């Protein structure tokens, strides 16, 4: 009897069918649960993936091609590059029902500028002198000085517009003008977004319901997509699975560009890396195509400098210091290291590509006499030892590898306190000029110069751009191919009829 009962129980549990998703809902896997949902207090890309452009939007939007397009502001105007007047779209409503007005823009920008607020990007708003409300739909931002990145700053995740009365719930229940609203957040498991019925872009969004499921393990993610539990894997599956998944007729694989530059950093404040010849020797010793093959199964793109292919000013400088082990040996001898030297790679295995890339690079460096060992450290330790922010005085590392996912971050090399510890007044001058050069042609010329200088001076080695790899069920349309900004824009995503 007991046996029968157990068998019946098991059968009941096992045979209930896995409920089919209605066609207007989508389940997306993301590897990391967002630490709160407030983009104005935390720069985590896990927050942006859920909230940015899905729940909250800015005056300007970065579109799928990386171009800045008018968004909550239907246009803007400046005569002197110091006073920007934004004309807001009318009848745009927050999901709490209230219309967005110029006072909300002022509130959001004033709050970003205010040092009392925990805004993580406060420095980017330093140029703002005042935000003046002209009328309900017109707002002028007066800058202290010309800032070529100002418009880009207003397109960033930290510049989203939210209703001032909802500022206290940004962290758990963010309200905005976006195509979706946050419906439910089961901590540790999922976040559910529902369609914003009053979204101001007619016909969007196309989905009624979006579920973000947090699945950290790549193998579990693979099983979940194969069993049909999830419809999209956004950042969870590594390149090693791509070829196999491409063969699965139920799935489609999107391979695109991203802003994530996988960078081999060297401690420029330390011997022998303070010697340009050594840094160039290391660059010549690395066959980046092989690194891409070995670590990323060929997915991604070889880089020559900090600027990635999604950037409009990108130029390919990867051939300027090409793979040439003989030259590497010669440079090492010139620098006083004819027999090479010992080095340690500190990498954080939390990011799988760092260890794999370090293994390939270490074997290549060995061929020119540089004996590199790999030390794996936990991410928190990596940040303390390698990244080293005040009160940390000197970074404790020789070489490391990490992906820098921030777009437009070439300024890191103009900051001698950044963990590369590269101090080049010439480069700093170029960067400072680029910050105040607003005309596109002039700015582009400066960016080209900076990229060439980075390649020639080799304060770091830019190995490759990490590809954007998205796996979806067949029939999911409208996802971005490339990722020029830290967004996972779902407004146009739909199931093919």
């Amino acid at each position, binding site marked *: 009897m007991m046996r029968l009962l157990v068998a019946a129980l098991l059968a009941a549990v096992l045979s209930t069918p896995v409920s089919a998703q209605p066609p207007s809902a989508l389940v997306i896997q993301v590897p990391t649960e967002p630490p709160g949902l407030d983009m104005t207090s935390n720069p*985590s890309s896990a927050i942006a993936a859920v909230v940015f452009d899905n729940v909250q939007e800015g005056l300007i939007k970065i579109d799928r091609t990386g171009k800045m397009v008018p968004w909550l502001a239907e246009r803007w105007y400046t005569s002197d590059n110091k006073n920007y007047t934004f004309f807001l779209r009318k009848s745009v409503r927050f999901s709490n029902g209230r219309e967005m007005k110029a006072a909300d823009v002022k509130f959001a920008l004033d709050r970003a500028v205010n040092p009392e607020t925990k805004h993580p990007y*406060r420095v980017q708003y330093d140029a703002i002198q005042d935000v003046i409300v002209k009328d309900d739909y017109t707002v002028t931002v007066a800058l202290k000085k010309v800032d070529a990145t100002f418009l880009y700053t207003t397109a960033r995740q930290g510049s989203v517009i939210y209703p001032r009365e909802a500022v206290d719930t940004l962290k758990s229940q963010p309200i905005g003008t976006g195509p979706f609203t946050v419906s439910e957040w089961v901590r540790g498991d999922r976040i559910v977004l529902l369609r914003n019925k009053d979204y101001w872009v007619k016909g969007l969004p196309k989905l009624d319901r979006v579920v973000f*499921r947090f699945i950290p393990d790549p193998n579990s993610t693979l099983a*979940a997509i194969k069993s049909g539990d999830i419809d999209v894997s956004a950042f969870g599956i590594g390149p090693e699975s791509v070829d196999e998944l491409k063969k699965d007729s139920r799935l489609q694989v999107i391979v695109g560009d991203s802003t994530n530059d996988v960078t081999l950093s060297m401690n420029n404040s330390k011997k022998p890396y303070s010697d340009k010849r050594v840094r160039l020797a290391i660059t010549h010793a690395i066959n980046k195509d092989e690194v891409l093959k070995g670590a990323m199964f060929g997915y991604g793109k070889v880089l020559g400098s900090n600027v990635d292919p999604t950037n409009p000013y990108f130029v390919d400088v990867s051939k300027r210091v090409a793979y040439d082990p003989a030259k590497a040996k010669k440079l090492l001898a010139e620098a006083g290291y004819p027999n090479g030297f010992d080095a340690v790679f500190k990498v954080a295995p939390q990011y799988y590509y760092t260890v794999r890339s370090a293994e390939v690079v270490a074997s290549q460096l060995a061929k020119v006499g540089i004996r590199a060992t790999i030390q794996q450290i936990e991410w928190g330790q990596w940040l303390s030892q390698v990244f080293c922010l005040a009160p940390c005085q000197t970074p404790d590392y020789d070489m490391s590898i990490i992906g*820098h996912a921030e777009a437009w971050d070439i300024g890191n090399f103009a900051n001698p306190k950044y963990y590369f510890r590269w101090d080049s007044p010439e480069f700093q001058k170029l960067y400072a000029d680029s910050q105040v050069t607003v005309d596109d042609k002039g700015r582009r010329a400066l960016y080209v110069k900076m990229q060439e200088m980075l390649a020639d001076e080799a304060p770091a080695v830019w190995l490759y751009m990490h590809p954007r790899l998205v796996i979806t069920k067949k029939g999911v349309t409208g996802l971005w191919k490339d990722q020029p900004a830290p967004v996972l824009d779902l407004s146009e995503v739909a199931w093919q009829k």
Partner: protein
Amino acid sequence: MQRYVFRRVGALAVTLFFVSLLVFVVVRVLPGDPALIILGLEANPDSVARVRQALGLDRPIPVQYAQWVGQALRGDLGRSIQYDLPVGTLILSRLSVTLPLTLLAAGLMVAAALPLGVFAATRHRRWGDYLTMTLSQLGVAVPGFWAGLLLILLFSVRLGWVQAGGFDGWGEGIWRGLRSLLLPAVALGLFQFAVLARTTRSAVLEVLREEYVKTARAKGVAERVVLFRHALRNALIPIVTVAGIQLGQLLAGSIILESVFYLPGLGRLTLAAISARDLPVVQGVVLFVASMIVTVNAAVDILYGILDPRIRYG
């Protein structure tokens, strides 16, 4: 007896004080700054200082400790850095996954290990014994996370009987909840099942050699009664001891399996909190689990005297 209970509760308080001190210190000597981890590669010294201040990490450590203990005594374990929710609320919500998972794994483990162990003992040095021992050897050798992945591949990817992971919550009905916990519970209990089966086998074997078993058989008592009433009952003491220890190990094992099956349980909460240096959560969970274990131990000690009159407390 009353004095003993009083002493035991006093000792419990002292133990918990040391646990709280230990976890507080350990969490703080861990390398890695929570503010830096929150801000990541886009941090600058200014923002790090502000976040540290907001988290109260700029105050002297003894002050932080006193404040934490003071609050904990009033039942407030602080607020999670990551979630901005009370730690107590988080623990309770996660316990609704981990506790059923552990209990289900323990239930499956006992239900499978006891009969199999007894079976092996009765077939000593025959094929049934060898087969059971080979099976349990496999159970000991296969790591739980790998067994979990194999189970997912078979039952979710191939057969499509159950979902590959995730937990829909008890709100959707007890069946749905059990369904999502079944595979992880099997994977979690596998190792402990193998250990328990082996323990049961040797304990029963031992007892089967006793004179009273021979007597029972000589009296013509049915073999089943001999086995389960005379042998197993007397073999239960080592089995229960092992099973008790295993319950704690199951709880620990859930940390990995909750990640494989992406279940929102206590284990995954702890793991995520450690990587994010969400200090209040790490402290809260450790203190909570330690309190549970210490309290249960104390209760068992006290219960001994009530259950077994031969035990006297001085």
